[in-house]
């Protein structure tokens, strides 16, 4: 990004809910001269939506205390979130204060985790953190378990997710993934998952057409397909950028940033051909880095699925050898010679590989669909069954298949995100028994959205 012929000055900022959300809402933070801060104390400003959901508002206040009360807070652009007005956030209180009231121990907040310390022993001096009491663990050492919560504002996970860990030393004994955001309460109506706004807007439109017994024009169908695939590429790249930051791999994060920058667009429209071509060109270094031995070595064997993968959907299922992709049965995708990307490892490497390969395929599909849209007569009637339009909207989103229906064209959306609950359970199960950083990498590799997991 070059402004006035010069590189912008990038300053670390605390980003609420996270960088990925803003990318999906059409704001490229680098154009605002901002990169996500590695820690709250390093933040020189705070970026937050105009309305902040309650759970995030409390976490924001916690982080703000560390960043400094006089640090500037600003809102970078429109967001689909609902909640407390940004000006009033300071009055909401903090998660930390709630914990103290609960008698669960007072511990200072940190951006990347709300430390509960040894929660069950609230109020004890911190010297006991590693006290030699209790049962010996697997390595023969006797340690007290440390309860720790990572999130809901965390660099590695989507904002709104909380990873509750019980640590034995630095080994994760128990893990649970929770979502603090609720679609109906914290985001605009018709937007069950603000992390994939285009997918849900298309789902709502198709569901309305099903309810009214109509089928969209052919050109509209191709335009929708192009927008969906562009969003898939953007979502996967935004995930990869966060994932690279978690891995501490600046080069990969920068490459992902360069590849996704042309795709960031106003959610009302889809990127044009020139932007898709620019993204395709910028994707080459990402593919190169992801093909390197050091990428494979870092992720292979990490976060292997413990459970039966049959409940999963999307890239998480396809990384576990399940050739399950809603696009396979779609007549429009068949015209574009679509073939699902499947890997067999069931580990973090397989999940990353599926998303990276799907990014390349999605850009090709988007270019193909945009071409068809241009070549299609405006009055031509659409294909029944495209995007599930025969019975209900069935759309393969970046995180899995979503099913949506409406009782009437203007009725509320009834929607299901397939695989989301199973992914939450699988991510926690796969994290157990690993070292702390491996556990974080494991959970991040599932690309969970806090919006579809339920409260």
């Amino acid at each position, binding site marked *: 990004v070059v402004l006035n012929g010069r590189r912008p*000055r990038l300053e670390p900022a605390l980003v609420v809910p996270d960088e990925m959300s803003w990318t999906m809402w059409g704001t490229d933070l680098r154009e605002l001269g901002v990169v996500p801060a*590695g820690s709250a104390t390093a933040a020189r400003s705070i970026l937050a939506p105009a309305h902040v959901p309650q759970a995030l508002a409390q976490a924001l206040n916690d982080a703000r205390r560390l960043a400094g009360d006089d640090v500037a807070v600003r809102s970078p652009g429109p967001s689909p979130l609902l909640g407390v007005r940004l000006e009033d956030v300071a009055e909401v209180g903090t998660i930390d204060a709630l914990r103290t009231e609960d008698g669960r121990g*007072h511990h*200072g907040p940190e951006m*990347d*985790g709300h430390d509960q310390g040894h929660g069950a022993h609230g109020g004890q001096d*911190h010297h006991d953190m590693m006290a030699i009491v209790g049962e010996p663990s697997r390595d023969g050492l006797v340690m007290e378990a440390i309860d720790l919560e990572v999130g809901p504002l965390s660099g590695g996970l989507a904002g709104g997710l909380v990873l509750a860990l019980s640590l034995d030393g630095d080994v994760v004994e128990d893990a649970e993934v929770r979502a603090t955001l609720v679609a109906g309460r914290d985001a605009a109506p018709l937007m069950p998952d603000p992390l994939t706004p285009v997918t849900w807007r298309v789902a709502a439109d198709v569901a309305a057409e099903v309810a009214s017994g109509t089928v969209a024009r052919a050109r509209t169908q191709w335009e929708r397909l192009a927008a969906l695939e562009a969003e898939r590429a953007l979502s996967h790249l935004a995930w990869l950028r966060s994932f690279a930051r978690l891995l501490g791999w600046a080069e990969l994060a920068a490459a992902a940033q360069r590849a996704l920058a042309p795709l960031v667009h106003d959610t009302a429209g889809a990127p044009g051909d020139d932007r898709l071509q620019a993204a395709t060109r910028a994707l080459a270094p990402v593919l190169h880095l992801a093909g390197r031995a050091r990428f494979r070595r870092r992720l292979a064997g990490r976060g292997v699925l413990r459970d039966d993968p049959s409940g999963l959907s999307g890239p998480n299922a396809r990384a576990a050898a399940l050739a399950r992709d809603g696009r396979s049965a779609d007549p429009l995708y068949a015209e574009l010679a679509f073939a699902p990307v499947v890997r067999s490892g069931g580990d973090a490497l397989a999940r990353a590989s599926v998303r990276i390969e799907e990014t390349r395929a999605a850009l090709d599909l988007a270019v193909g669909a945009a071409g068809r849209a241009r070549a299609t007569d405006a009055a031509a009637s659409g294909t029944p069954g495209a995007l599930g339009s025969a019975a209900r909207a069935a759309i393969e989103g970046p995180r899995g298949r979503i099913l949506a229906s409406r009782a009437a064209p203007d009725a509320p959306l009834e929607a299901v995100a397939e695989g989301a609950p199973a992914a939450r359970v699988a991510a926690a199960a796969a994290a157990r028994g690993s070292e702390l950083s491996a556990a974080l990498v494991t959970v991040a590799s599932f690309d969970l959205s806090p919006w579809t997991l339920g409260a």
Partner: protein
Amino acid sequence: MSDLTPLALLALALGGAFVLAWLERVIAGAGAGPGVVVRDGLATLRQPLSRPGTYDGWLFHLAPGLLLLAAVAALATVPWAPGFRGIDLESGGILFAAALAYVTPAVFMAGWGAGAPLAVVGGFRFLALMLGYAMPIAMVITAVAAPAESLRPADIVEIQHAVPMALVQPYSLALWLPAVMAAALLPPFDVADAPGELGGGVFSRYTGLDAALVALARRVLLLAVAGMTAALFLAGWHGPLLPDAVWMALKTLAVAALLLWAGRRFARVEIDRVVSLAWKVAIPGAIGAIVLAGLTTLLFYR
């Protein structure tokens, strides 16, 4: 050592840290000129000191000072020019390793003092890392000292007037670079603070003067290890045409740029793998380096 040496050393630490902070921004593609470094430093200093509810105040506020002290002590042992060095001991090389050894307790104190689990985990990680990598640093210094038959860094520079040690002992350099990167808390060995993962880890609670001291200490550490690398492996001040000190400064900057660039090229190391690598590869490798250095000395330096 003149009366002005401590002042010169202080100026070197501050000036060097400033240049390296700017170099860091350039390599990270964060743009902007040196003015931003000053502005950022002032912004940090304006923050009030943090007093986390869980902390051990004594350890917490002492750690940044100890870290800076260790960094300056390491810096003082580096031979910058034929007549200029802070501490000129016969065993200067070992003093450098000893100064770096104090980084470990400082970092651990920072994590333990903060009292937050992620900070404590960061502290323990660094302890485990440096238990493995402190020894290779001292052993490699012994290996490069063999041809000079002296542990005084200035003597090691002088013995390289014809051939830099990087060409004579490339294996020692290969062992040295990761070890000093670990000691200087540089990515990809930044397991103690791990931005984006531990959210700042051991340094996550520091604000104001504490944070400024930590930032300064990290740059001085980088300056010290880059300077010592230039001295021990790249013939220090030796070079044609330019004055001695300029050669040393250029080589130090080049090494620092290489270390910062390498940190961006690799994902952060995993603590279990890197500790295993230290004990299974780096330490046996360093013993092998000493043996090879002995043979090289007998064959070519006598």
